[in-house]
């Protein structure tokens, strides 16, 4: 789950990471004069808001109110701006970069720091980025000298030590996949302040963080329903609606469809469910998306084939499914599944290649 900037900054404050003075408004009439020289920042979960005009500057309350009104009417990459953060404008001496993420290869958290802040970090040269692996439960005192010197912040070393320790504590205690400050501003008074804040919390750990805000991500009604029901939902631009189990199998279904000129449309991943109701829910979502063809591709393991078959039969009885359906079912309890389907006159294929070819032909004919 991504946090909005102001949500991340609330947590920064709690952890003693300095942030600019500021407040959130959802209505331009709530802009007051507690901050004079200010920055108005669109609160959206997508990058590139600066380039899109989602960051404005104002000298006084009047212009701040006007700019806040403008930004609150914007859509950035399709996302409606619902709130703006109004902050004091910082006097910037230098902009740097610091983050903690997870290094998959080493299986450890990795702190990244660079003197080149404010840019997209992908565009920064490799040798200008310092890397320090962090070990769960371990202190970070031993790397502070290295970080301070890499960032040319020897004089501000005490601030660096406090910042890194807080960032690490925040990262670990809040189950983060990413905490990123870009830019981290060194003011002309020598004070270090987090000008921006990005945080991604590990979805699988949200159950132990009731204190965190609920995600504000913009979702289509269908996406929202899918999420509420624990079904992975991806909207692509083709006509074949795919219901499959597992990300790898789903991607290979798309790859195989493309071999026959077929294109995936809505794609639903049942994941590791073994619940008839969940299968019916997937069909309910699929019917709402009204694809030209429905392709069911199941290779049962945790998800047993007979469970899926019962779900298909129930969905056929409960829902008006107008699209033609191609079902391919293999794996645990496949014989039982075939029997259940055949009793209802549904014939399931066993071969993925054949199923993809048939679905592609049906798509082309409609």
């Amino acid at each position, binding site marked *: 789950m991504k946090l909005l900037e102001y949500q991340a900054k609330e947590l920064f404050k709690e952890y003693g990471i300095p942030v600019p003075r500021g407040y959130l408004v959802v209505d331009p009439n709530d802009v007051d004069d507690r901050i004079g020289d200010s920055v108005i920042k669109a609160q959206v979960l997508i990058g590139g808001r600066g380039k899109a005009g989602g960051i404005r500057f104002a000298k006084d309350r009047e212009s701040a109110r006007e700019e806040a009104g403008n930004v609150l009417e914007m859509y950035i990459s399709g996302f409606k701006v619902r709130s703006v953060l109004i902050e004091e404008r910082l006097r910037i001496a230098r902009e740097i970069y610091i983050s903690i*993420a997870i290094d998959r290869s080493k299986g450890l958290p990795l702190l990244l720091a660079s003197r080149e802040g404010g840019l997209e970090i*992908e565009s920064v040269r490799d040798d200008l980025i310092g890397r320090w692996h962090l070990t769960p439960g371990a202190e970070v005192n031993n790397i502070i000298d290295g970080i301070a010197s890499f960032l040319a912040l020897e004089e501000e070393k005490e601030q660096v030590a406090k910042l890194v320790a807080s960032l690490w504590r925040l990262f670990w205690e809040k189950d983060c996949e990413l905490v990123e400050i870009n830019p981290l501003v060194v003011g002309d008074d020598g004070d270090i302040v987090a000008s921006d804040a990005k945080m991604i919390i*590990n979805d699988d750990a949200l159950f132990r963080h009731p204190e965190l805000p609920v995600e504000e991500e913009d979702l289509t009604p269908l996406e929202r329903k899918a999420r509420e029901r624990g079904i992975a939902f991806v909207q692509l631009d083709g006509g074949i609606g795919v219901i499959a189990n597992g990300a790898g199998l789903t*991607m*290979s279904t798309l*790859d195989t469809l493309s071999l026959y000129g077929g294109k995936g449309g809505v794609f639903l991943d049942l994941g590791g469910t073994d619940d008839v109701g969940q299968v019916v829910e997937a069909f309910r979502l699929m019917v709402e998306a009204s694809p030209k063809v429905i392709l069911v591709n199941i290779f049962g*393991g945790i998800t047993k084939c007979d469970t899926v078959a019962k779900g298909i039969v129930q969905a056929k009885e409960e829902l008006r499914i107008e699209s033609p359906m191609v079902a391919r079912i*293999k794996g645990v309890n496949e014989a039982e599944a075939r029997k259940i389907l055949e009793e209802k006159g549904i014939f399931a294929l066993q071969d993925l290649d054949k199923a993809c070819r048939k679905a592609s032909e049906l798509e082309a004919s409609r």
Partner: protein
Amino acid sequence: MTILLDERNKVVVQGITGHQGQFHTGAMLEFGTNVVAGVTPGKAGQTVHGVEVFESMKDAARDTGADTSILFVPARFVKSATREAIDSGMQLIVIISEHVPVHDSIEIIQMAKAHGIRIVGPNCPGIGSPGKAKLGIMPNHIFKEGKVGLVSRSGTLTYEVVNALTESGIGQSTCVGIGGDPIVGTSFIDVLDLFQNDPDTSAIVLIGEIGGTAEEEAADFIMENVTKPVCTYVAGLTAPPGKRMGHAGAIISRGRGTAESKVRALKEAGVKVAAVPHEIPNLVWEVLNDA
């Protein structure tokens, strides 16, 4: 010979009384796995498919001499259950559970490394050594004994490819599903190394998918260390670019991680690349006939 697992492993099923634990204990026993115990706190004294249920891993290990465990416990209990398995002297721990918090995975994998213990998973389909034993949730009937080693990052796609190999008459030495989470206990490289040193594995199939850099790292390793023929399929060639790539995540991979980059790296390492899963058996027949 097989890698990681054979009929001698004495297996404890953690979470044996749950729906999945019960079902897959039955399937593993049918496959020939030496399941010696189960553990579910509060359910000691029960039996599941004739297997005795113990209160704790300590009790199970002491009474049965178990050395291997497989976890079917809910994600939030995986950390404590794995710690218990490590403390009870298990040498191989397979974690089937999905949705394990990534920080928990980091902690338990570090802990296992410090003790020299192998973890496979989390969020994986497990290990199958046809004719010997299975530790996982893969369907029993898709396997066939033979000489091809298979390693995969995916779950159901593993079944797809194992099934396709078997249907075309190609048997397997061992099939390992390492799991699709960003952090897993056993990597492609670990398994490639084991297959390279296994005298009864003559060719290797590697199944990858987009995201991360595990396939590129595997390609580097193959280039330097693997002399056996390798065939691969990377899922997601036609998938649109994902949204989940964070900035700092992208920096770790430095532009690596797309299907194109993976396929390129693997081809450069001399690996045969299939465009769809069903091309794999033909590629394997080619390399077996060339050998």
